[in-house]
């Protein structure tokens, strides 16, 4: 144990900063969260990357402001998609134009937020304290959203979005708990039980919670007896 601690202190001091170490350790934690939500709860998030990135972004932007940017991105994406729907062009061009319009719209929405009396502010000290990457990462959500929206209907896509944001919020919440952060950097062995947990989820075969609700009618009405 002593050697592991020495190794950790060396990591924190000479290799990376403590902040980076915390963030890196949270990557498998949030991934596990997505894993549990997919197979045990039955959530269909936009993959594993989107909820993870959103969790970290919300740390940079503050949760309220982060959610505002998220809503702004989705509304803008929907608008730009509707505008572009019937215009003939290459796929990548469409996505690029979509990004351009989205960015423009997000700026407008954020400006409107600033001047409105119900303005949502960031928990960070000032807007200038938000690293640009925080907002850029949320904007990339547009891509995940549009890719699914083209294939599936709006409600299914919004459902995935809501589930992604829920997981991101839980991830953000975990990230903000100082005790958890301290525990993690001092107990890096926690990754091993995490590994086992994920392995067990990998073997899970029963119904997910959402499926239980989906088939509830059948279960209560009439299951077939042999």
């Amino acid at each position, binding site marked *: 144990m002593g050697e592991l601690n020495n190794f950790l202190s060396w990591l924190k001091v000479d290799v990376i900063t403590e902040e980076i170490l915390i963030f890196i350790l949270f990557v498998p934690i949030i991934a596990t969260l997505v894993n549990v939500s997919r*197979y045990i709860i*039955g959530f269909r998030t936009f993959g594993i990357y989107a909820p993870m990135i959103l969790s970290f972004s919300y740390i940079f932007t503050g949760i309220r402001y982060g959610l505002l940017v998220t809503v702004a991105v989705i509304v803008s994406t929907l608008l730009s998609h509707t505008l572009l729907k*019937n*215009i*003939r*062009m*290459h*796929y990548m061009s469409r996505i690029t134009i979509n990004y351009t319009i989205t960015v423009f719209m997000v700026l407008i929405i954020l400006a409107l937020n600033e001047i409105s009396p119900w303005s949502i502010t960031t928990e960070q000290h000032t807007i200038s304290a938000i690293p640009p990457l925080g907002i850029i990462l949320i904007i990339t959500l547009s891509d995940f959203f549009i890719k699914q929206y*083209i*294939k*599936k*209907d709006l*409600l*299914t896509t*919004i*459902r995935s979005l*809501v589930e992604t944001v829920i997981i991101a919020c839980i991830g953000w919440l975990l990230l903000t708990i100082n005790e958890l952060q301290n525990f993690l950097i001092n107990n890096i062995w926690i990754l091993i039980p995490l590994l086992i947990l994920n392995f067990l989820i990998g*073997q*899970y*075969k*029963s*119904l*997910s919670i*959402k*499926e*239980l*609700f*989906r*088939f509830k*009618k*059948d*279960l209560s*009405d*009439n*299951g*077939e*007896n*042999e």
Partner: protein
Amino acid sequence: MAKMNKYKQILGINRRNQEYIRPHNPPSAKKISDNKILCKKILHKADIKTPKTIKIIRNKRQLETLAWQDLPKSFVVKPNRGTGGNGIIVFYGQKKGKLSWIKSNHQVMTKEQIGIHFEKILDGVFSMGDTGDVVVIEERILNHPTLRDYSFRGVPDIRLIIFNRVPVMAMARFPTKMSEGKANLHAGGICTGIDLANGLTTESIQLKKRSILENTYKNVEFTSDLKENKPLKGIKIPYWDEILNIAIKCQDITNIGFLGIDIAIDADRGPLVLEVNSRPGLGIQMANNSGLRPKLEKLKDMNISSRKRASRLAKTLFGGEIEDEIESLSGKEIVNLVEKITVYHKIDKKAKKEYQTIRALLDTGITTSRIDEGLANRMGHKETIENFKNLGIPEEFKSVSEAKKIIKEYTENGDLNYRLAVITESAKIKVKPVVKTKIKIAGKQKEIETIVSSQKEMIYPILIGNKELKNYLIDASKTFTR
């Protein structure tokens, strides 16, 4: 096998993937299900019919040189490697003299708009992975007359799940107004369970409410938004045995161990395989109100030697016990060939008796029911019958068209408050009045149209015609009443 806990009977996505898809659907088999063109080729070799391909567009250059004017009035567009019905558009007609086609919701798409859709398909927007795709243009299937009455615009399809060569569950999916001609459950189509033993439909479900959390579904008994809504229970799926055989054959050829297959029935060509699916959805359990697991477990270690045996197993293992449960399965009441019925008097006050119990013959050989003139008189239709006699319509006609002409004349000129009908009686063509008669049959009261007949040799005073018998099964072995 030990009795399974009710909720354990349901096959969920987790178990489907781990126990059925991964071990039984090898990547080579998935390749076939994920590529419509390849799949069609393979099925054709085995003489399994699929919708005819009209055109394949592989790249943008081919799209630019596409001869739009050569496209038929109706056709279907599909992405070759599309999933879950994404990117599929059915065109039902063409705007006269224009290069514009009409979708099921009556929306018109111009050549340019369809072109944009084709480009999206070519860019791989609707397909698995991020690489490009190919546009497949197919003939549109003509709805089979039996199923036409149950669907709103689109074509219904039959989904079967096949495991270890044996069909284990089936459902029919009917397009509705809500689903805009699509047959998918989540789009609002009606999904109806099918009894594997006989191809009769059982319970039906439809989307109740879309919700952010999870869609909810409700049981439905009738079609909706059609001119005449019909009961969904007891529809006999045409070509049922052939459909089962096709499904079994498809599995043999594609080697997809846990297979979902979609079949549509074309009015001219019969059952056509629309798609084979190596990741079939599990909503079929809701339509059948029963879980897949016990059925799949039963088959796991079985060695099924022939297709014939597989089909027999499907019917006996997973079909309902038709003799015992025909009533509940088909939703039809069983009635006798000669049934005791109650006939009610037209005007209650004047009548000596308000109703009368008589024996009626259920005659599937005639369309509209018949009533003996004497009985009709007693039941309060004397005025109508006398009025008809005073019209002076000839006793018999040389042809049906002549008789129809007379009916038209009287209906247009006179102020008849009853309908006239042409019937053939003792090999003579006659015109007779039609009266409404209130009856009670098998415990249910209804008002039926009856043609007044003066035929001397009518043994039974009432013959119930085909029009009224759609919801009954006639047991010809019994002539005694219940």
